[in-house]
């Protein structure tokens, strides 16, 4: 089997995640979908590093994870405070950008 399949898988997962982000209203689920996308990217990166035979891909994936962790912290905090003020975790309730 050619490891390119890993890339196909990554692409598939990324797409699914993206679709989830667009479809779901619950902020937390949306967040999970984002995590899913990140993971898909990581998989791709790691496959690349294997293809090119050096570890830089893994390093990038590593940083991605770190950043993702930080992002999760902040994002969830935002969700919590938003819930406090609105009693809702729906992204559609934050529609202040409406004209």
């Amino acid at each position: 089997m050619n490891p390119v399949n890993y890339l196909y898988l990554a692409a598939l997962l990324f797409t699914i995640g993206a679709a989830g982000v667009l479809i779901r209203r619950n902020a937390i689920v949306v967040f999970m979908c984002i995590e899913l996308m990140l993971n898909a990217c990581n998989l791709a990166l790691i496959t690349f590093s294997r293809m090119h035979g050096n570890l830089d891909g893994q390093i990038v994936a590593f940083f991605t994870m770190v950043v993702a962790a930080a992002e999760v912290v902040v994002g969830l905090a935002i969700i919590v405070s938003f819930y406090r003020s609105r009693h809702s975790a729906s992204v559609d309730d934050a529609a202040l950008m409406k004209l």
Partner: protein
Amino acid sequence: MESLIGLLVAAPLLGAAVLLCGGRRLDRTGHWLGTGLAFTSFVLGLVLFADMLGKDGEERALHSHLFTWIPVEGFQADAAFQLDQLSMTFVLLITGVGSLIHVYSVGYMEHDERRRRFFGYLNLFLAAMLLLVLADNFLLLYVGWEGVGLASYLLIGFWQHKPSAATAAKKAFIVNRVGDVGLSIAIMLMFVTFGTFAFEPVMNSVGETGEGKLTAIGLMLLLAACGKSAQVPLQSWLGDAMEGPTPVSALIHAATMVTAGVYLIVRSGAIFDAAPDAQLVVTIVGAVTLLFGAIVGCAKDDIKKALAGSTMSQIGYMILAAGLGPIGYAFAIMHLVTHGFFKAGLFLGAGSVMHGMNDEVDMRKYGGLRKYMPVTFVTFGLGYLAIIGFPGLSGFFSKDLIIEAAFAKGGTQGWILGGAALLGAALTAYYMTRVMLMTFFGEKRWEADAKGDMPHPHESPKTMTIPMIVLAIGSVGAGAFFDIGERFVHWLEPVTGFEHGHLPDGLSVPMVTGATVACMVLGVAAAWLQYGRRPVPAAAPRGSLLTRAARRDLLQDDFNHVALVKPGEYLTRGLVYLDHKLVDGIVNGTAAAFGGLSARMRRVQNGYARSYAVSMFGGAVVLIAATLLMRAV
């Protein structure tokens, strides 16, 4: 000597500048300054005349080149003067009659608080008219041409508080402008054809180009002449021009300006000689106008309008003569000069009558004035005899010569033109006798004017009578003086050329002369029968169809109104509407369309982060597709 030519124009121009810019402090002395400067240029003219007589025929023409006016690649317009016998004739006429009328105006305008400005305008007119006749190229002539138009505009509308006067002035200027179009097109044609528009080179190289172009130039010049000299079809302004003060009518609309057209045609005689078709049209216009004016003159009750009709008709004679070519040029100018004398005299007389009658112009309210203003009566009478061509007086000679020349053209044309001229002579006698009888004979028919005070006619002051006397002398003697031994013809011959016309066989000079006199007698008799024997009704009878048409200037104004004015108004209104609705509407419509479009497009901004995300995602898709396509290509 050449330098004097410049002074000739400069003197009245200076007067105009000083009087118009001088302000109130000149109000008391201004009119004498104007008159003095007019006389100055008259004296200068005499000096030059004397000098010219000193030389013989061909060397008499003087040239003075002041400066290059418009120097552009391939286009040389000079400010240069040319004083030959033709110009000299006009200079003397203009400055002489002009000076007399200045003097007359001193008395006539005495009670007008804007007299200073009036004299300023008069001087301006003199300057422009002198420029017109002294210019040595058509472009400079054009300057004078429009200059006299401006002066005439200012003077016709001098009593601007009267809407009728303002309208008449505007009408005169605009109709003249139509003629000016002709003149400027003629100049352009000359430039394209000869590469220049100075008199000498153009006339010298006439032979080197085709007749077609010359005909075009000639017709365009004729159009200009029609505008300035109130010839059919551009005659409509002259009648209304009588709104101006009477001295103006005498100087500009009888003696000098209106004859500029004749000058133009005679001056460019070489062109017309080479373009017979154009000449034919000129004669036709002349003949038509001389009848037209005469008919109008027969029906008018307003003394000045009647005289205006007569002027139109007399200039018709001149144009007719000028159209006859070398046979007629000299006679045209000669009639022009004599007409300048007697018509100016007649107008001044009319002015004197109005002066005594509270500015009443309706002849039906005159009558029996000969007892009250004898001097006016005598001078006016002499002018009257002169214009109807009473044997021995100047009109007799000049008009008779023109009629002979008309017959001498030969063929049917000759007969038609001559017949028209004869008929004109009869009509002239008729309407002038009518004026004479209604004004000075019969019992008095005076009425109180609008302010309710009865006129008590009296003789005018010396400042007014003296010029009338001088002009009367001129109108008696000038013709004989000119005609005896063909003095005038020989004087002009070097410029205009001359050839004796030969009457068609079966005609002889005495026969023509006799016919003329007979016609004159007929006209007088007819008028006496109608106005001399029985009293003149105070209210004009309804009259025949022709009479009524003639009272309305043969419907010329109605025609212009229907044919030009109304359509013009509709056109402008329509265009204003279109400009607002269509041209502007398209622009504003586009703007509105964009407004509506954006109003729809902002609906996309529904504020939901998710739908924004969709558009982002879609953008990403498009980008990837684009990159892939790029790589595939």
